[in-house]
């Protein structure tokens, strides 16, 4: 099988012309020409030219599932860190509990972790998240791993295949937030296996044959991998 390298492009690199294609994510237009604005992987399909970022903070998109860490309980809302350029606001109307004015601390406090969903990103980048969904809740136990948000799709795998492998071989519960935070719960050994594999995926996200490599690693006798 021939190996094609996925093309890495860098800021200011000329990618195309707006007469032929539309400027997608990670690009900017100047004088009718499309350029990359970041270091990333070129994705040039029939209509759009996109650049998939390799690095950078999470860029919130409405409906994304994210893992947030509560920064500060305010009077009728909480400020939550979701690894974006800005903190997100969680309003008392967006939680499944009955919270009286000024009673926010009773429910969520500084340092608590939550599974949330991005509700709204407005034009000034003010972010709102919600806990109102049966899959969302305050997290108890387990461990949170931080990864590059850009690597999340790879860690999930096509149709969740990579995550399914991880869950199967480590008997862990795993939840991947789009914002680069992964929650893992299980035995200490299982958690460590997941961390090792995730780190490997992070370092080789763009390689081909990664799913097989991961499966091999998981199948091996994994008595305490440092």
């Amino acid at each position: 099988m021939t190996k094609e390298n996925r093309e890495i492009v860098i800021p200011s690199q000329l990618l195309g012309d707006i007469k032929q294609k539309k400027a997608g994510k990670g690009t900017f237009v100047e004088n009718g020409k499309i350029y990359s604005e970041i270091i990333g992987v070129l994705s040039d399909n029939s209509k759009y030219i996109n650049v998939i970022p390799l690095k950078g903070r999470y860029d919130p998109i409405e409906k994304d599932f994210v893992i947030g860490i509560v920064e500060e309980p305010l009077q009728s809302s909480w400020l939550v860190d979701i690894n974006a350029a800005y903190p997100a606001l969680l309003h008392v109307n967006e939680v499944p509990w009955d919270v009286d004015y000024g009673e926010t601390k009773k429910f969520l406090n500084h340092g608590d972790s939550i599974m949330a969903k991005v509700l709204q990103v407005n034009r000034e980048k003010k972010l709102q998240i919600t806990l109102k969904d049966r899959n969302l809740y305050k997290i108890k136990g387990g461990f949170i791993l931080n990864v590059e948000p850009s690597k999340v799709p790879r860690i999930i795998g096509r149709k969740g295949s990579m995550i399914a492998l991880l869950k199967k071989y480590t008997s862990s519960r795993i939840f991947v937030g789009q914002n680069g935070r992964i929650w893992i719960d299980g035995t200490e050994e299982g958690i460590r296996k997941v961390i090792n594999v995730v780190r490997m995926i992070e370092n080789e996200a763009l390689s081909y044959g990664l799913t097989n490599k991961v499966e091999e690693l998981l199948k091996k006798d994994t008595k305490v991998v440092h």
Partner: protein
Amino acid sequence: MKQDIKLFVDGKRLDGRTPDELRKIKMEVGVLHRAEGSSYIEWGGNKILVAVYGPKEAIPRHTQNPLRAIVNAKYNMAAFSVDDRKRPGPDRRSREISKVISEALENVILVEKYPRAAIDVNIEILDAEAGTRVAGLTAAALALADAGIPMKDIPVACAAGKIEGQVVLDLGKEEDNYGDADLPIAISPRTGEILLLQMDGHLTREEFDKALGMAIDGCYKISEMQKKALVEKYQKLTEVE
């Protein structure tokens, strides 16, 4: 300062370079664990480390700009980086350099994408040998790209000057101390626009044009090295065993 030090010996500069030759430059991207983006550069005897954090909400709130991100470049020299130990902390020279570098970077970073945010660029001079601000800015550009900060170009900087009546590229230590003029610049290589320009000394109009042209040529050479360093760092990820 005119001394009896000769800056040209047998037609060559003290370190053996020709008038339009750059010192040896080495660049590395992504060298720190904690920083979101980082780079390291060795340029002649200069050793400079840069770390980028952000974009993140600017604090204190009164520094926030509702329309765009603010870029805080901080140039700092380590106490041991110079011949006579420097007292730690920013002096007036460091603060001025920080400002002109911030302004150059703000031109190319797509700051409108991050209203109310701040992007911190920390430039540490660990070993100094003339031309620290241009080396610092050149490295900062790499660290910004490494952090995933969107930019419309990768800025690059270089200096030219005049020694013993001759215009030369990339002043070295003695040349900076005993020369007649120093002209550090930074450009946006895609468009050729000048983002940073300072000058001190004495240059006729012709000498200035020559020096500027030389510095710009130097910038383009260094720009190739930056691009190579960036691509090399990330190309590794795509290579399969």
